[in-house]
């Protein structure tokens, strides 16, 4: 029988731990559903199919950003972090400090409710909620900041509980050494704690102003940028840790480079966080020119940890697959269990990461940032990361964890194995049309692009494609949510197979000393070539465009 230590471990968790993890995942799916519906509405407004009445489109966009970026990504992360930290070692039996984690859950739910109230009733400030946009202090505006502060409190509590789950078993003598997943959990929890503190730094002065207890914050933008840098980095770190866990769970293999190297790579995420943060400030007029140059150079390091984890995983998988009979340059990829929903989700996440990563390098260049930051290039590229990479990875993980926690087999795995391709097809339309629209100067955060008939005709055509792609993505994600909800709610069979009958490929066993693994390095070569191509295209198109850049804060 195929060994499934992670499934075994999930099944052995106490019922109280399972309830908590399912509560986090359930809340995550609710916030995802709300965010997707609001996002689909925004896409329809952009495509001209819904009337962009004053505030309505912006309210939808605000709810989309708040629910996806702040709540879906963080409820899911909280659940995954707690699950991985509670199962990081064979003898880690349960979650530690569960009550603190429940307190974190309650704070996050309270934050979610407060943010919804603020987004639905006040001035729609979009998810970054700059107070100067609201102009006047009000309880509705304050509700958004209070929601974010409550979320921060919740994340801090969850992170402390996760650290306790890794460290306390060692105090009790139940675990001897720290596994790479245990170490990654500590690193991930640490960055969550810092992000919670950064949220207080950004939102507390704004909340005091909104409730008329303090002045309008003078430097809200800086506080937001430093928080945003952490909070857009965290989901990527969570994604690669999740890949690491899932590959081990699906194929029964460890990294061929050994646990020590994996820990070094996970720690590089933390090392590169502060030095790569300056590119968010490129549009701030007061930033000194040498700082812009240094920031531009340092920002190139931002993808180093992700590329390293990708190489570890792909090389480990390829060498093991070759040792088990795979042949040809890409023969091993064809042999992977693509009908398994978890594999399909992770596979498409990798493809989308390559596209989003290559495009992101265009945006973090100091000369291009002012020209592209306020165009539709930005949502065009970042959906490859938020939907195509992070969300698909998290949903793939839930396809593994929810059956493991409930003992119920996954509902309709065949459908679920097809959804990553549907989401990626929608994303390809949305992202390609969005990036081209950005290169052609179509603004982001402007819902009526007609400009009284003065706008280029191509903008509206491209927004039609963006709307179509957005709807395909929305359909795929809603089907995911429904399938996972049915899995959760349906009655369990009396004797469900441990691996739930999903296609798999056990590659565990010794790897011959000399197995070549070309796919990883080749992928990196293609990635670098694509980045250079996108940059050249961007320069050429923008040089040809008759426009001037007047920037505001970059995001």
């Amino acid at each position, binding site marked *: 029988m195929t060994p499934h230590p992670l499934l075994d471990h999930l099944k052995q968790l106490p019922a109280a731990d399972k309830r908590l993890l399912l509560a986090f995942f359930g809340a995550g799916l609710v916030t995802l559903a709300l965010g997707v519906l609001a996002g689909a509405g925004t896409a329809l407004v952009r495509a001209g199919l819904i009337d962009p009445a004053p505030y309505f489109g912006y309210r939808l966009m605000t709810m989309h950003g708040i629910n996806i970026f702040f709540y879906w990504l963080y409820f899911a992360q909280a659940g995954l972090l707690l699950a991985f930290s509670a199962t990081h070692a064979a003898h880690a039996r349960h979650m530690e400090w569960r009550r603190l984690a429940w307190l974190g859950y309650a704070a996050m739910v309270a934050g979610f409710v407060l943010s919804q109230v603020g987004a639905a009733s006040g001035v729609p400030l979009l998810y970054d909620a700059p107070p100067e946009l609201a102009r006047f202090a009000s309880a509705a505006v304050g509700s958004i900041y209070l929601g974010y502060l409550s979320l921060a409190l919740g994340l801090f509590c969850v992170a402390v509980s996760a650290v306790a789950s890794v460290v306390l078993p060692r*105090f009790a003598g139940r675990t001897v050494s720290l596994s790479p997943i245990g170490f990654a959990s*500590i690193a991930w929890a*640490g960055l969550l704690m*810092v992000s919670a503190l950064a949220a207080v730094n950004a939102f507390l002065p704004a909340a005091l102003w909104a409730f008329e207890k303090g002045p309008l914050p003078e430097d809200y933008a800086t506080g937001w940028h*430093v928080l945003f840098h952490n909070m857009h980095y965290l989901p990527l770190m969570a994604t690669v840790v999740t890949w690491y866990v899932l590959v081990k769970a699906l194929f029964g293999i460890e990294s061929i480079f050994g646990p020590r190297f994996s820990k070094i790579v996970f720690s590089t995420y933390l090392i590169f966080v*502060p030095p790569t943060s300056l590119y968010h400030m490129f549009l701030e007029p007061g930033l000194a020119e040498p700082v812009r140059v240094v920031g531009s150079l340092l920002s190139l390091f931002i993808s180093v940890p992700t590329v390293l984890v990708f190489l570890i995983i792909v090389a480990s998988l390829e060498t093991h697959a070759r040792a088990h009979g795979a042949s040809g340059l890409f023969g091993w990829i064809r042999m992977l269990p693509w009908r398994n929903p978890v594999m399909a989700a992770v596979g498409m996440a990798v493809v989308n990461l390559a596209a989003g990563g290559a495009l992101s390098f265009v945006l973090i260049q100091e000369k291009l940032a002012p020209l592209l930051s306020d165009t539709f290039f930005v949502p065009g590229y970042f959906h490859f990361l938020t939907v195509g990479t992070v969300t698909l990875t998290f949903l793939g993980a839930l396809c593994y964890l929810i059956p493991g926690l409930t003992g119920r087999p996954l509902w309709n795995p065949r459908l679920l194995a097809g959804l990553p391709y549907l989401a990626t097809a929608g994303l390809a339309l949305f992202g390609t049309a969005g990036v081209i629209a950005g290169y052609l100067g179509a603004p982001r955060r402007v819902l009526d692009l007609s400009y009284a008939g003065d706008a280029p005709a191509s903008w509206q055509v491209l927004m039609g494609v963006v709307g179509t792609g957005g709807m395909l993505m929305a359909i795929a994600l809603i089907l995911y949510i429904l399938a996972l909800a049915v899995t959760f709610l349906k009655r369990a069979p009396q004797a469900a197979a441990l691996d739930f009958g999903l296609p798999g490929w056990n590659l565990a066993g010794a790897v011959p000393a000399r197995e070549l693994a070309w796919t990883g390095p080749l992928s990196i070569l293609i990635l670098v070539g694509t980045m250079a191509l996108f940059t050249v295209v961007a320069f050429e198109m923008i040089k040809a465009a008759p426009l001037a850049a007047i920037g505001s804060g970059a995001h």
Partner: protein
Amino acid sequence: MKQDFSLLVIVAVVWAVLALLYATVPMFHMPGYAAVWGLGAVVFLALAAAIAAASRRERKRHEHHGEASHE
């Protein structure tokens, strides 16, 4: 376990240096950045300390068991 401790200390040092840079060098002067990276350095130092404490407890347990088995 020594590696785990060392890696987290390196992270804390990098964050502390960056915090100092943002707090003191006029060209980089951004108090918000300095505060967050500085607090981050404290968080990672605390995590390194927790790992070191667990490691010390483990070592003591081994020593104790070693002595017990000798007796």
